C-alpha cells in the first residue's frame, strides 16, 4: 500500500482557504516509508516467490507513484480513484483499502508505518483490523517461515520480537532496508505492467458506506516563528562555552 506525498525537502505553504497546503510547485514522491514497504515486498518475492501488487487510494496523479513502484519491480498496480473518496480521513482510507484487499487473494500486506504528510500512523493497523488479521507495526526486520512472519519492531529504547500467523500486515520502519533506485529498463517495463483503476462501486462500497469523515482539518498554521537568535561571541572556545552556559542558566533558564 503506497501513498503519494510531497517530497520531504519541500517547503510547505498554506493555501488561500487556510486549511490545505499549496500544491503547485511541489515535487511529489512515493511516501518514503512506503518505499521501504515496496522494497521489502520485492525481497520477499525474490526469496519466497509470489506476486507483488501495489495499491493506493488517490487521484489521476497517483498513477505516477504507482508506476514508480512498478518500476522498482512490483508486478501490478491498483488505484482507487473516486471523487467520493477524495475527502477521506485515515479511517475511511483504511476502509477503502481493506475493502479492495478483500477482493484479492493475499498472504502478506505491507504498508509504511506512517505517511510523511499527515503523520497519523493509522492506516496500516486500521486496514489489518478491518480485515480481521494480525498486524505488527514499525518493523525493522522480518523473516517468513512455515506460514508465520517473525518481526523485530522498534519501541522507545529498544526492540520487540513478535510473530504473527499469515495472512498478516506489517508496517515498515526506517532501517528495514535501503530501497533500490529505479532503473531505466525498470521504467520501460513498468509502462507495460497492468494498472487497474477502480471506483468505490467497483469494490462494492458506496459513498454512504464511508459516511462523513470523522476528522476534519479546519485550519493550518505555521509553528510560531522563533525569535532571532543570539550569537555567542568570545576569544576562544572556553570563553564562548562559559558565555553560553551563563546564558542558558540565567536567561533561558534551562540549566
Amino acid at each position, binding site marked *: 500500500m503506497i501513498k503519494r506525498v510531497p517530497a520531504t525537502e519541500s517547503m*510547505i505553504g498554506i493555501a488561500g482557504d487556510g486549511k490545505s497546503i499549496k500544491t503547485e510547485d511541489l515535487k511529489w514522491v512515493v511516501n518514503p516509508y512506503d518505499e521501504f514497504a515496496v522494497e521489502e515486498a520485492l525481497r520477499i518475492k525474490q526469496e519466497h516467490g509470489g506476486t507483488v501488487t501495489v495499491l493506493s487510494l488517490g487521484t489521476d496523479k497517483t498513477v505516477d507513484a504507482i508506476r514508480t513502484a512498478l518500476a522498482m519491480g512490483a508486478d501490478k498496480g491498483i488505484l482507487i480513484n473516486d471523487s467520493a473518496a477524495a475527502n477521506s480521513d485515515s479511517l475511511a482510507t*483504511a476502509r477503502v483499502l481493506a475493502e479492495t484487499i478483500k477482493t484479492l487473494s493475499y498472504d502478506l500486506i505491507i504498508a509504511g508505518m506512517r505517511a*510523511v504528510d499527515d503523520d497519523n500512523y493509522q492506516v496500516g493497523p486500521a486496514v489489518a483490523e478491518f480485515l480481521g488479521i494480525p498486524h505488527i507495526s514499525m518493523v525493522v526486520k522480518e523473516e517468513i517461515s512455515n506460514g508465520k512472519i517473525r518481526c523485530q519492531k522498534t519501541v522507545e529504547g529498544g526492540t520487540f520480537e513478535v510473530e504473527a*500467523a499469515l495472512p498478516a500486515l506489517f508496517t515498515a520502519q526506517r532501517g528495514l532496508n535501503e530501497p533500490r533506485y529505479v532503473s531505466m529498463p525498470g521504467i520501460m517495463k513498468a509502462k507495460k505492467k497492468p494498472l487497474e483503476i477502480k471506483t468505490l462501486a467497483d469494490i462494492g462500497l458506496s459513498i454512504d458506506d464511508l459516511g462523513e469523515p470523522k476528522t476534519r482539518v479546519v485550519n493550518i498554521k505555521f509553528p510560531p516563528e*522563533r525569535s532571532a*537568535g543570539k550569537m*555567542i561571541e568570545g576569544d576562544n572556545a*572556553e570563553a*564562548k562555552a562559559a558565555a553560553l552556559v551563563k546564558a542558558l542558566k540565567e536567561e533561558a533558564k534551562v540549566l
Partner: protein
Amino acid sequence: MAEGVLAIAEQMDGVFKNAAFEAVSEGKRIAQSLGISLTALVMGNNIEKTAEKLAEYGADHIVVVDDPLLQDFLVDQYTDAAAQVVKEKQPEIIITGATSIGKDLCARLSARLGAAMATDCVELHIKKDQCKVTRPIYGGKVLADLVLEGFPKILAIRPNAMGAALNPSEAVVEKFEAQLQEGNSKFLDKTMETGKTELTEADVVVSGGRGMGGNDYTIIEELASVLEGAVGASRSAVDEGWRPHSDQVGQTGKTVSPSLYIACGISGAIQHLAGMSSSKVIVAINKDPDAPIFSHADYGIVGDLFEIVPAITREIKKAKG
C-alpha cells in the same frame, strides 16, 4: 450515553512511562473543564500495585486489566482489552501518550470502535460541543487544527508536549475481567537498552551531524551525559552509518521537543528543522557562520565543535560543582 474521560496509562514491566502520567494529567484537565470524571486504565500482568500510583495524578477511578496475556504489549490483546473496557465505561474521550505503543494501540482501537483519532496532539481544545486538537503535519512544518466528531474520540498526545501534574485523589484500584484469548500473534522477546534516555522523552537532546566527520560521538555523548540527556543525529550522520536509525531526528526520523536542543555540526536542512523546531531552547554550534541552523537557534556559536563541545561539558561540570 457517552460520559467521562478514559486515560490509558502505558507501563512496561510494572514501570509507567512518563507519557502515562502526562495522559492522566491531561485527561484530568479535560475532565475537570467538562465537569466529568476521569478513569485511568492500566493493562498488564501483576500491575495492581503499580496502578495505585495514578491516583497521584488525579484519576477519579483506576481500572486495571490484569492478565498473563497482557504481560508484554501485543496490539491484538491490548486492543481486545481496551475495547471491552470502552464498551462498559462508554467514555466520550480516550486519551493516551503518542509513544510507539500508544500510536499502535490507538490506530487499531480506532478501527475497532469506528472512532475518530488524532495522534501526536500538541494542544487540546475541548469544549462540551467541540473537540478540537492541534497536531503537527508534514513533519512539523505546519500545524493543523482538527475537529473530531462522534463517540468516542481517541487522542494520543505527543510526549513532552503537555506536562504531568501531581493532583492527588482518593481513587482505589478496580479490577476489570476482560475476556482475552491467544490470538494469531505472539510476543517472543524484547531487547531494551538500559540506562539510556529515550530521545523523544529526553529533556535535553545533544545531536551531531555531518560536522562530526565520523562515528566517534564521544564528545556528544559526554555533553549529553552531564546534562542527563539523550544523543541524537541528523539524517546525514545516520546515512553515513555513524549512528543508528533510532537516533535520527527529523521528518523521516523522530520528532523531539526537549527543553534544550543542542545541534552540533548540523547545517539545518528543512527535514531536520521539522523534527526539532518545537524544542524550547535551541543551541547551534557550527563552523559555517552561514549555516541555516543559526536562523532557527536561540543561541549560536560559530567555531570548531571539537573544541567548543568539550569546553561546554567542562563548564557545566564546573557549574554543577
